[in-house]
């Protein structure tokens, strides 16, 4: 039903007449409650729905509505609320007339102030119920306005003296407020903050959209906060999706781990190293949970890429301290990687063709009610050409390949109850000189059940399984009789249940337990041929169980002071069929010093247990200044055995045993945040001190593979780390960016009772991860809405290294004697990257959208050291005519420009 008006003044005259009858006759309109979903539908569809489904007579001129779309879910929304909220973005307004009439028309240009104000006013509830309620709960969802994806961790602050809230992993939030007019600020890192004026009449639901500052294509989001974290949470790193995307990528590949290393307290050894190091910790001290299942090798291609496929990831959280009591198991950090649930509205396919791998992902609903969704993705590599460029003979002859596949099914019963099942599988393979082939892979599975037990009581059941398998096939110089494969295997299974209770706005409680079963097969030798000289050999499997229970409380003692305290108790028992050797206590632990042994038969061999207290406090000192303090103790019962300075995929995992005690870490940290020192930004600083007991150190030439008495290769040791992290973040304005500086030290000390075993006579020496200075700068200048320029710079002190200090001649060879452990340092690592981006068209209706990014990695071609080694060479001027020289290998030693074109349709 369309009106045919000849002129706008005529329209207004009519409207005035109609409006005059509104208050007396508007009855049917007030009773209409809408439950509809419109995704990118023309506005006319919405109006037709009102007309044909709800029996309203709707009048409008086609050209007024033809360019407008509706992208909104309406849940129990009164008609007036729906109309207000849908039309304010389109420059239209409405009036009721009689008891079933609705007229849609353009807003007047002669009263801009009134219309602007009206356009910002969202009405929640039925105006007829005004004054009926003393409190109301505004529930809603915050989404990326461009992609429609939920924004987890978005912050909602009401004006006045009311407590804010944040969105959960589905972008959902609820906030209790008194009825009336409120101003809500919605903010999310990397997105433009939005203020909404709300007229809250009664409890209701509404969706809010935020837009990226530059309207960039959505990428993985690394967020810093989530609903279930206490306000006093500290030592969390955060980086927004926009920032990750803007970082110049390595050969066009965006990688979450590489991006994280721009943040304070997070480091990696080089472009070619597995994992990352948190506050001086080893790579095995990081618990990487993919949908709740731990990963035991987090890298592809020796570390060029992380195992995380960004296409399927919803968000990432990294705790480098301040661990919630529900987490434990690793002493340095916990990284939570959550997959997407899958688009509820339509099936989407995304993918990429890169220079070292390609990927494909798909997500969408599986049923008509859109409660059952899926996401699935996979990657496969073709990276051999990169290795051909590395000037090392073995590497240049290497062949490498990887693939990974991941998927998740989610069944949402309603807003609070859901089940999700996740699977992940990866395999890597590389070979050098055709003499050996190395394969390794991860297999993960997880099932999570989230449910609401009562109004403020939520439960979460988590079942996780993870396997890591490694195999080296050695062809023994093409000698079939001596060819063999060497393998090891690790299995981890866990079941946990967490409860979250929110009895009062200023009090939260959490409790839960987790049980873990470990099984490792530390070594197995298998001949490749039937006719062989190789003895098949299998080391005893290692079994252990670990359980933990926790309780944590969060109190807001006042508006400015809140605390969170938790206690976790973890218990570990090694059990099984094992022969344990006992050593002469007056001698160093050595196979020659065995004095007795104990045979355990399917029984407990050794148990360890202890409390892990957690505490954090937050004080609002005013003038936008927050003070934080935290303490944590964490126990770790599984370790990586490594003879390399840089973690490799070939490391074996070892669980605590009769001789090997659990690693215990105590960390204390204090921090300050200020939002007024820098306009549009935040300045924060943290200091920390971390003490580590029962670390692993290796004897000279230690044999770690197929060693039945691994304790004979190890030296007991301890260590400590301390540091100061300062970061400045500016998120507003044309120039945005991040600057982080870390000053830290990480020291180790062997404490064997036998002097000859100790390194550096038992005094403290720098850990291989001791890099005192770490500076990261990242700046983005938004030249216009579509053009932006990004630059980043990193400077990291060189890592400690052991260098040859003496040379000597023996049987016509020039040999070397090394310095004390880690006495010297490599040259510092520094690098600058730049990129220029021309973003996609901002029009939402445009089908084809493309963007260009030109980036240069390692702009000034710094030859950063990866490793230093001693080898035979040809005497010449460059090495002072020596037959042997020290060499420095740089992996990426020149500027690497790349141009990227992204498009979607």
């Amino acid at each position, binding site marked *: 039903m369309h009106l045919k008006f000849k002129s706008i003044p005529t329209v207004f005259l009519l409207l005035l007449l109609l409006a005059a009858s509104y208050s007396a006759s508007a009855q049917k309109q007030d009773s209409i409650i809408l439950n509809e979903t419109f995704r990118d539908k023309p506005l006319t569809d919405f109006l037709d729905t009102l007309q044909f489904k709800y029996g309203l007579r709707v009048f409008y001129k086609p050209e007024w509505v033809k360019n407008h779309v509706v992208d909104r879910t309406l849940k129990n929304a009164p008609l007036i609320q729906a109309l207000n909220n849908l039309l304010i973005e389109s420059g239209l307004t409405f009036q009721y007339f009689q008891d079933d009439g609705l007229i849609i028309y353009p807003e007047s240009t002669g009263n801009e102030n009134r219309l602007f104000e009206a356009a910002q006013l969202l009405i929640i509830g039925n105006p007829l119920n005004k004054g009926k309620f003393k409190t109301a709960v505004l529930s809603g969802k915050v989404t990326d306005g461009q992609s429609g994806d939920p924004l987890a961790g978005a912050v909602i602050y009401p004006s006045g003296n009311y407590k804010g809230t944040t969105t959960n992993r589905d972008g959902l939030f609820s906030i209790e407020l008194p009825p009336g007019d409120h101003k809500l600020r919605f903010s999310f890192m990397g997105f433009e903050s939005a203020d909404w004026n709300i007229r809250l009449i009664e409890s209701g639901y509404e969706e809010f959209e935020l837009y990226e500052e530059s309207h960039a294509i959505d990428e993985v989001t690394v967020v810093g906060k989530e609903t279930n974290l206490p306000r006093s949470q500290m030592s969390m790193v955060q980086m927004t999706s926009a920032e990750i995307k803007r970082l110049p990528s390595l050969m066009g590949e965006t990688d979450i781990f590489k991006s994280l290393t721009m943040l304070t307290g997070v480091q990696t050894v080089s472009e070619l190293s597995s994992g990352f190091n948190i506050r001086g910790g080893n790579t095995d001290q990081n618990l990487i949970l993919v949908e709740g299942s731990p990963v035991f090798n987090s890298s592809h291609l020796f570390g060029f890429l992380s195992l995380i496929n960004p296409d399927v990831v919803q968000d990432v959280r990294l705790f480098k301290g301040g661990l919630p009591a529900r987490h434990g198991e690793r002493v340095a950090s916990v990284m939570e990687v959550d997959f997407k649930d899958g688009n509820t509205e339509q099936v989407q396919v995304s993918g990429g063709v890169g220079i070292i791998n390609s990927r494909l992902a798909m997500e969408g609903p599986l049923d008509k009610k859109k409660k059952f969704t899926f996401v699935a993705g996979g990657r496969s590599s073709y990276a051999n050409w990169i290795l051909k460029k590395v000037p*090392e003979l073995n590497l240049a002859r290497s062949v490498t390949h990887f693939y990974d596949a991941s998927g998740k099914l989610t069944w949402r019963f309603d807003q609070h109850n859901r089940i999700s099942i996740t699977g992940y599988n990866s395999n890597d393979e590389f070979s050098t000189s055709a003499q050996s082939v190395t394969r390794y892979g991860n297999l993960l599975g997880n099932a999570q059940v989230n449910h609401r037990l009562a109004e403020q009581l939520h439960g979460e059941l988590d079942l996780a399984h993870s396997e890591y398998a490694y195999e080296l096939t050695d062809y023994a110089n093409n000698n079939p009789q001596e060819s063999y494969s060497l393998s090891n295997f690790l299995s981890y299974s866990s079941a946990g249940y967490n409860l979250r209770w929110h009895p009062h706005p200023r009090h939260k409680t959490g409790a839960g337990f987790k049980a873990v079963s470990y099984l490792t097969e530390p070594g197995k030798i298998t001949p490749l041929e039937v006719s062989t000289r*190789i003895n098949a*050999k299998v080391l005893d499997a290692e079994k252990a169980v670990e359980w933990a229970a926790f309780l944590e409380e969060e109190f807001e003692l006042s508006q400015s002071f809140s605390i969170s305290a938790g206690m976790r108790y973890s218990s570990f028992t090694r059990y099984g069929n094992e022969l344990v050797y006992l050593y002469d206590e007056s001698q160093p632990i050595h196979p020659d010093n065995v004095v007795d042994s104990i045979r355990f038969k399917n029984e407990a061999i050794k148990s360890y247990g202890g409390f892990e207290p957690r505490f954090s406090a937050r004080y609002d000192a005013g003038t936008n200044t927050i003070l934080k303090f935290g303490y944590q103790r964490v126990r770790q019962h599984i370790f990586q055995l490594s003879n390399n300075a840089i973690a490799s995929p070939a490391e074996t995992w070892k669980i605590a045993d009769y001789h090997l005690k659990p690693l215990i870490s105590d960390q204390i940290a204090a921090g300050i945040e200020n939002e007024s020192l820098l306009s549009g930004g935040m300045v924060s600083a943290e200091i920390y001190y971390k003490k580590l007991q029962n670390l692993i150190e290796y004897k000279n030439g230690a044999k770690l593979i197929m060693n039945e008495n691994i304790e004979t290769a190890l030296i007991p040791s301890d260590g400590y780390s301390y540091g100061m992290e300062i970061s400045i973040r500016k998120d507003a304005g044309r120039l945005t960016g991040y600057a982080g500086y870390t000053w830290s030290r990480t020291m180790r000390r062997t404490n064997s009772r036998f002097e000859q075993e100790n390194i550096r006579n038992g005094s403290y020496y720098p850990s291989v991860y001791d890099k005192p200075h770490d500076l990261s700068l990242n700046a983005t200048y938004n030249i216009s809405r579509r053009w932006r320029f990004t630059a980043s710079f990193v400077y990291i002190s060189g890592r400690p290294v052991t260098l040859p200090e*003496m040379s000597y*001649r023996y049987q016509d060879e020039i040999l070397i004697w*090394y310095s004390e452990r880690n006495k010297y340092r490599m040259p510092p690592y520094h690098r600058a990257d730049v990129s220029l981006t021309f973003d996609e068209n901002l029009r939402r209706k445009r089908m084809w959208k493309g963007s260009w990014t030109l980036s240069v990695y390692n702009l000034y071609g710094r030859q950063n050291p990866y490793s230093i080694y001693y080898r035979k060479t040809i005497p010449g001027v460059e090495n002072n005519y020596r037959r042997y020289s020290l060499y420095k290998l740089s*992996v990426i030693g020149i500027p690497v420009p790349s141009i990227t074109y992204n*498009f979607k349709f």
Partner: protein
Amino acid sequence: MKTVIKYLIIILFLNSACETVYNPELDPVDKVLVVDAQLTLGNSLHKVILRKSKGFNEPGNYQPVAGAQVFIQDDSGEEIIAMEQEAGEYSVHLEIIPSRRYRLLIYSEGETYTSEFEPVPEVPDLDTLYTREFVKWTQPGGETNTSEFRKEPGHQVYIDIAGNDHQKYYRFSARRVIQFYVFFDTVMFGGIVREIKYGWESFGPSGTYNIAGPSEYGSDNRIIQHPLEFFPYDESAYLDSTQKAAGWIYIIHQYGINKQAWLYYRDLVSQLNAEGKIFDPLYVQAQNNITCTTDPNKLVLGNFEVCSYREHRYLIKLNDHQDYHTIREIHDFHDIPGSGVINFYPPYFWEQ
């Protein structure tokens, strides 16, 4: 359905990695005694060489340690003093008795150094020597020139050694003598006649210490398919354009060594081969068998080795155009000068 496809185009990515000589500033260190001592079963004259180490960046030669008193002791209590022939080089005349164990005793600069008693290994032998066609990867411009890698076809020499309860550990050295012809024209009896010069040139072993021991996961002590030298089809790298190759005389020095020496050499090989390993292995500090008894904290480098010895010779002539190669044992152990050329007639050691 929405499709997102991402294209990445690399404008330039060439030789991004690089390797450069690294000359770090190192702390000055004290020089320490280095012992290079070897007793060989069957020899009557043995040398003990004493030198000083030097700082890694320090130029110049290794300073000999003169004026030391050097003794060889056996486990029956006999002791023989070594005489200093020249600065730092001490010689001792001694017939090694296989059933005894020997140790080294040094008095130098007020300190006393002793080795452990080392037994005498059995005289070694080979069971089989054979070759297999093999493609070796090389860096033609030398190991500092990383711009090109090249495949070099040829033959790899392998040996098998039977299992032995007493002798398990070996060290190999080698001398490779390439024989070649040079054709030249000369006037004889009023006419031009094409004649032949017979030449040879010696080369040392390639690589570092070549040691062999039982397979780590093996069921017996046999040594199977242990690689020795590689001989390429194309010998042009060893000859000039006027010379035509006529086969190699391959002289193998096989030493039987003790397990301690084998472990010491294994540490040294780890040091020397730790080149460009992708995951940057931790260093290996070689553990020797000599200590300073007057100051246990004083470092002493080098090793005292008691070994047995056997020489083997083979003629190796490869032909990459035919499936026929000559691999033949040589039983006459002539003395062969390092290099030379003889007109018209082959030298006495020439192998056809």
